[in-house]
């Protein structure tokens, strides 16, 4: 079974990269390099170390922003889900944050916080936090009432209900929110580097486009996508490790 799914993954990668190679060879656009050229550029950047240097810059706002969004987002989400009053207070902020066109807000952030790390962390948070908060709070609110009642009848205190019922029951949805939030965070980090100051991977993209070195530009984009996918897989592994029975289906469904 795992073999089969691995085969399918490889096949799908082969098809996508093959299509990319063909599209690059036609070429559909002068600005669209082939897969092989892009990989060669990626290898070159890997060997001269420039890509690692770039990620050193890009990962700073990304990691700080995602960490803040995760901790604060899940915390606020739990709070909003548990208390109606805080839902009224906070929920609209995150709905607006989610709906707001971020690129248009970046000049405001730059005016307020300058062009440094702070603004970039803000961009990552604005992208990542709303979906984490909103999915956590809705997961908490949808905790099966019968499980809470069961725990209460077996003398659970409030913190027991939260730790042993609400959080495990909500964890699949919290984690799916986290996955969406983290991928939005990746978008935010690159957006910040393109819109605020070109550093890190955003710098490679901007610079190689300006000198028409398209293979390098696509190599940088490709590498960030790979990194995001790897990170999401890691998140899934963590989820399965923390909440083992959760991938086993719900009894009362």
């Amino acid at each position: 079974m795992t073999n089969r799914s691995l085969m399918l993954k490889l096949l799908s990668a082969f098809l996508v990269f093959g299509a990319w190679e063909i599209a690059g060879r036609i070429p559909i656009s002068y600005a669209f390099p082939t897969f092989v050229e892009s990989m060669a550029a990626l290898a070159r950047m890997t060997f001269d170390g420039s890509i690692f240097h770039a990620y050193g810059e890009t990962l700073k706002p990304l990691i700080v922003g995602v960490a803040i969004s995760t901790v604060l987002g899940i915390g606020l989400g739990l709070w909003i889900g548990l208390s109606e009053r805080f839902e009224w207070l906070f929920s609209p902020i995150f709905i607006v944050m989610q709906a707001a066109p971020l690129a248009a807000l970046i000049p405001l952030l730059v005016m307020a916080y300058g062009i440094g790390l702070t603004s970039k962390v803000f961009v990552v948070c604005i992208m990542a936090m709303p979906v984490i908060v909103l999915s956590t709070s809705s997961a908490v609110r949808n905790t099966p009432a019968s499980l809470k009642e069961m725990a209460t009848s077996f003398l659970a205190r409030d913190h027991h209900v939260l730790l042993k019922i609400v959080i495990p029951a909500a964890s699949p949805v919290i984690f799916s929110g986290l996955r969406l939030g983290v991928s939005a965070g990746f978008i935010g980090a690159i957006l910040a580097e393109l819109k605020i100051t070109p550093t890190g991977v955003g710098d490679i993209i901007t610079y190689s486009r300006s000198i028409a070195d398209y293979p390098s530009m696509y190599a940088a984009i490709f590498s960030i996508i790979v990194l995001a996918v790897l990170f999401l897989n890691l998140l899934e592994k963590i989820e399965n490790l923390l909440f083992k029975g959760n991938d086993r289906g719900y009894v009362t469904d």
Partner: protein
Amino acid sequence: MSQTNKAFSDARPLDQEIAVSVRGVSKNYGSVVALKDMTLEFPRGQLTSLLGPSGCGKTTLLKIIAGLLKPDSGEIIVNGKPVVGPGPNRSFVFQDFALLPWANVMRNVAFGLELRGVAKSEREAKAAKYIKDVGLGGFEKAYPHELSGGMRQRVGLARALAVDSRVLLLDEPFSAVDEQTRRKFQEDLLALVANENKTFIFVTHSIEEAVYVSDQIAILLPRPSRVSEIIRPTSFRSKGVENIRRDPEYLDIVDEIWASLRSYVE
């Protein structure tokens, strides 16, 4: 009220020790009267069924006894103490099982003990005993979704037994399991009542089931909710589980209950 009193004066002569008593309990949901001035007593060590058409407030009464719902007026006395909330002297078996889907059978059964802060080795030893008692030996590591409906309810029953409370509250525990499993359950329940010195309060909508398993049947009628009758089967309990269903008294009681309920079933 006079009806209730009359029912009690009929039932009283047995003069048993009372484990749970419900005194003048009322409960409204908005403008809907779920229970009105309900008074009822449950003798120790016996199984009492609450039987009635839907909407008669039997589950509400059970949840009030459990401390999960607060009555608007009146009080519940369990072993001499008034009920203010859930307590260690009562445990509950749920209609929909209410098992933790992310926990295996062992953890589910030990969950009540876990909440009481019992050490892991101790609670697992205790849970293992009750898992075996309900006939689930070998399934300790299974997850609820891997079990059949009947087995899930056995887990729910083992969880309620594991906390070793004096009063067991069962809310239509067999309504979600199939007919054959239900019959086996009913026989096992009779053995449980005979062997464990516990008071059972059993909510059901099945007349046959109530008559089969009960020492005492309280017939509840809706609108307004009240106890209309208390029936105590006398002769067939000692004749063995396989003879109950063809005993004349069993058949008479089933017919009699249906006669008094039929006008309330729409």
